């Protein structure tokens, strides 16, 4: 990895090289080029390379409550009924067939098996208790989360449109189950850029046994320029692809190489007048800065042991806990949108995905880090301008599945997400579901509404954040989306 060379010296050196170089190449250029060249030098005189960057921060439509977002994506669809949405009635009716009225007109995954094997109601086996001043119910599986209920807003009435993993993830990220639309992080950086000058504005981290289904489309830029697509930060090896200089290239040599590239590019800029070259020069400078800032980012040695313990980080092991701390560090350094994927929450029953041991394992993996993130952000005052979002692509059915071990099917009509931090009411439970947890009975929060609200908190009016493609102004919320006023402080 690179460490930055002595800045003062190398700047001076660069400056003199540049003067020399241009001292020579001014000869023979026409007067227009000369004028442009002079303005170039003026531009460079004060600070080295002040160039255009499409990710430069810019104001939204109105003052923002939230500067940055950390989105904890629980990939696979966590069961709200084992974690947050406590349904004593369901426990009482355990093993009974579900009344037909609930199933009419609904579609589910694995529906082809229903006729042969009608699903029965499944009451949770987990113990629930009320916590905090808000009295929110949280199950025994989330003891740490139970400790932060007064800092978060639990929403039980979330709803989505699609019930298979890959399309549902796409829907939660892009507001559409059709391919080719930009993801939320892309929309946000397209709208307001990013504060970070040496790290990507939209970063994706992942943990768990496998990558999220659908892969790259979840953080794609769709029809927006690829500048805005999510940059995966890897848990092992190089944090960003091709971040390290090639073997045998020292930091100094890399700098010399980039200097030569810049000088020759600059000359071509003068020659052709093509402003794209200016952007390219700027991109090389950012790339160089990333080479030292990204290793610094993932180097946790400057964090205290207490902080690492708070998250439950095991040294040298990629984990959701480590990613949570990295998310805080990214936001500290100005990254706008940080998305963490953790697999695997898919709990159908069956080997590796039952609601017993497998589920306990995944809840253990995320519970402490999630709570730690909130506490850590809060004590640093960062919760005042950071929004934290927790949730999957859908929830689970009140019915069990007839498989080897206990499990639940995908459910789109109601599931739980939580929100914390800037602009969000702390310590509330929003949205009631019916006594079986099948559907919301009040305050239904559809994905489009959630998107509209998130953009609103960032100072963006969701109907005005548009991009013209194929003759239509597209938006994250398509033609839908109502602000969830009750969620906002």
């Amino acid at each position, binding site marked *: 990895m690179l460490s930055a060379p002595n800045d003062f010296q190398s700047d001076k050196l660069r400056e003199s090289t540049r003067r020399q170089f241009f001292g020579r190449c001014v000869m023979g250029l026409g007067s227009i080029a000369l004028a442009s060249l002079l303005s170039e030098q003026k531009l460079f005189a004060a600070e080295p390379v002040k160039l255009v960057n499409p990710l430069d921060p810019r104001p939204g439509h109105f003052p923002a409550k939230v500067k940055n977002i950390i989105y904890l994506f629980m990939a696979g669809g966590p069961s709200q009924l084992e974690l947050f949405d406590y349904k004593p009635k369901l426990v009482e009716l355990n093993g009974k067939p579900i009344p037909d009225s609930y199933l009419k007109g609904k579609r589910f*995954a694995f529906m082809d098996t229903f006729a042969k094997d009608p699903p029965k109601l499944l009451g949770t086996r987990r113990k629930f208790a009320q916590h905090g001043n808000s009295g929110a119910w949280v199950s025994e599986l989330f003891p740490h989360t139970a400790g932060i209920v007064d800092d978060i807003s639990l929403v039980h009435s979330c709803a989505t449109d699609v019930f298979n993993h890959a399309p549902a993830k796409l829907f939660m990220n892009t507001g559409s189950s059709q391919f080719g639309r930009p993801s939320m992080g892309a929309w946000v950086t397209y709208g307001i850029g990013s504060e970070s000058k040496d790290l990507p504005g939209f970063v994706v981290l992942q943990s768990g046994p496998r990558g999220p289904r659908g892969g790259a489309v979840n953080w794609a830029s769709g029809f927006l320029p690829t500048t805005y697509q999510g940059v995966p930060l890897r848990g092992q090896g190089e944090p*960003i692809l091709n971040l390290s200089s090639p073997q*045998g290239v020292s930091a100094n040599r890399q700098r010399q190489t980039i200097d030569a590239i810049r000088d020759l590019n600059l000359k071509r800029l003068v020659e052709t007048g093509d402003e794209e070259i200016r952007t390219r020069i700027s991109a090389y400078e950012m790339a160089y800065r990333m080479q030292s800032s990204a290793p610094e980012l993932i180097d946790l040695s400057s964090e205290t042991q207490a902080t690492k313990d708070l998250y439950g980080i095991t040294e040298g092991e990629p984990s959701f806990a480590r990613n949570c701390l990295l998310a805080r560090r990214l936001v500290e350094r100005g990254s706008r949108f940080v998305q963490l994927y953790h697999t695997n929450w898919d709990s159908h029953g069956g080997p590796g995905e039952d609601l017993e041991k497998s589920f306990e394992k995944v809840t253990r993996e995320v519970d402490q880090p999630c709570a730690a993130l909130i506490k850590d952000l809060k004590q640093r005052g960062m919760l005042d301008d950071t929004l934290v979002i927790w949730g999957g692509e859908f929830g689970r059915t009140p019915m069990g599945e007839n498989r080897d071990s206990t499990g639940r099917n995908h459910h789109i009509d109601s599931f739980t997400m939580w929100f914390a931090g800037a602009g969000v009411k702390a310590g509330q439970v929003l949205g009631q579901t019916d006594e079986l947890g099948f559907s919301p009975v009040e305050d239904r929060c559809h994905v489009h509404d959630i998107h509209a609200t998130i953009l609103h908190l960032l100072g963006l009016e969701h109907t005005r954040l548009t991009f013209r493609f194929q003759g239509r102004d597209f938006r994250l919320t398509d033609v839908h989306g109502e602000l969830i006023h009750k969620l906002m402080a």
Partner: protein
Amino acid sequence: MNWLVRILSLMALTVPALSAEQVNYLKEIKPLLSGACYQCHSETQQKGGLRLDTGANARKGGEKGAVIVPGRSDESLLIKAVMGVAKDLPRMPYKKSPLDDEKVALLKKWIDEGAKSPANEKAESVLHWAFVPSPAVVPVPSVKQTKWPRNDIDHFILARLEKQHIKPSPEADRVTLIRRVSLDLTGLPPSIAEVDEFLKDKRADAYDRLVERLLGSKHYGERWGRHWLDAARYADSNGYSIDAPRQIWKYRDWVIHAFNRDMPFDEFTIDQLAGDLRPNATLEQKVATGFHRNTQINQEGGIDKEQFRVESIVDRVNTTAGTWLGLTMGCAQCHDHKFDPIAQKEYYQLFAFLNNQEEPDLEIPSAPDLQRQETLRKEFTSAENELKAYVDSAAGDVSMWQKSLSPEQVAKLKPEIKTVLETPFDKRTLKQKLVLVDQIRKGNEDYKRKKSQFTKFEKTKLDLTTTMVLQERSEPRQSYLFIKGDFTRHGDIVTPGVPKILPPLPAETKNPNRLDLAKWLVDPKNPLPARVTMNRIWMQYFAKGIVETENDFGTQGSGPSHPELLDWLANEFLRQKWSQKAMHRLIVTSATYRQSSRARPDLNILDPYNKLLARQNRFRLDAEVVRDVELTVSGLLNDEVGGPSVFPPIPDGVMTLGQSKREWKTSEGPARYRRGMYTFFYRATPPPGLMVFDAPETTSTCTRRLRSNTPLQSLTLLNDAGFMEFAQSLALRVLKEVPENDNARIDHAFRLCLSREPKRDEQQRLRELLDSQLKSYDSQPEEAKALSPKNLPAHANVKQLAAWTTVSRVLLNLDETITRE
């Protein structure tokens, strides 16, 4: 009447600071009002009692009184409404995108000039230009600078420039020209020898000869086939979460070869959409139907298969409409198109064409496959004959054994043996006979050997190449309109049909099928495909199409900058019998194309977006071509055409990003250095070296790539192991090809990468770098060693090679290296 409609449909080019001429109501205002306002304010509907479909009606006003005060745009309600500042009125057009500033300015100007309109104007809406057929003859405009044009295209461009008093740019220098046209036609840079040859060729038609050579190159099909594969959403895996690999590269080969033999675009279209329905369809024609098999396949557990089958048909409808008609049909999946004359029902009529197919894999034995098959067949036959002879020789014994059996014994036999015994002797198959021989010759070595030979060959299945194709079902599926696009909500039954706004199917067509759809698409009467296709070809040469929204020729699209030129090109395309090569030849030999791409201060003010083409455009190469150029100049390129996809090196950890970790066994040997278009493409974990340079995601049709310019691109070119290998190889190449003299070597390396000679200061800057590197390696020899390639030649000077590798890295990272000027 036709000419009038045409004139009416011409949209004004929106170049600021233009004419002092008066606004032309019919030409400029009426089409504007028609597109933006007629939906609610014309014959069918008069919201607020207002009609805007004639100038007289507009001046009359509505319930709120006059909306136009002639001469006073600032007092006119119409202007306030479209600007969103009218009291008690929402911004107009209601709930549609606002009019852009230029259109508002035009309306204002018209009102300020008195809001005049012809007295005999009729209240009919203007047919949108794209649906109006091109006139039979498009007159080529005359120009003042008669020496500039090289062909008819230039007349259209120059006439427009002369109207604005703008001078075209001078021709690019010859080196730029050969580099430009080589990259555009083949996606590969010219070699130094090719550049020298062209520079030496003083014949008047030297450039035309060059163009002919390039159009004849086997790489032309790769370059232009790749553009087509974007539209076809080609990839090597099924997509969604499972993303299993698939075999469909034979379709890619088909596309490349179709371009290389300049298959007429109408045939090209019909084979891809309906090759299987051609009379006596050939293997090739069946392979071509892979076009619509490039849809994703969801293999996730628990899905409703019908849902994703329907989604793939929806994708096929949208892809067909986008690719051939340049229309955004997708909107009509859920409701009547809000802006274009496409009803929801018409969407499902197109859907019905594409809803009747099976989706099999077709086996395509290659020549070696066929040979192996033949050998196998021979071996099998000989084994079979031997076994038969043996069985025949045992027939007597078998018959004796059978006769010797008592009824009790027979009863105890296995059912399969009994079945054979019940079969008359001469009706027994070889397999049945074997069952009996087994009973009496179990231990016989000769029999065992012959039988196992036979079984072995019988079981051997050749791993044949397959490709995914369409095949029409004998029983068509019932198609419905899906209410709000939801496939579970069936509306009316629909049968195949085409949108009313376009020419009808031939009257004699009964029960139209895919073949009829394909033929209809390329019927010369259909005004769209020729325009859409020519516009896209134009776009590849000038970075922007004549219609900039190349995928939206509808009313919300941008309108053509040179409408007559587009019509002329479409006509010419048909006159050339749909030959794409003929059209490429025409464009690249035009003076317009041959202009310099240098920015001009005057144009920055007069035409900042270069819509009028008073110069060429300078733009970054496509993702695959970035790789191809670097491969070529480093001397590593394996320029084989076609075949299965390959696995060049990718960074560690790329394949873990999807749900299923797919294997990536890095190719060794020549397969490592194939062109970028042959890199195996997993949709969930696409090759990062391509994606970072804006290769399409391949999940839906892509007819135009955006070009981004990001730090991740810089990191890729600087640090990626694959690109580093190119730098090492370029260094070796330069040292080998120029034995002495560092300045000569710099010149050589520079020319390899950029085709042109370095300027003196450029050479000096590189020399400085080289010298400083050589010097620093004196004190840090271990660094030089670390930079050496794996296959370091025995007598290589490690320090020298390391210093040259650094110089090579600089050259391979230059903006100009990955740009076509």
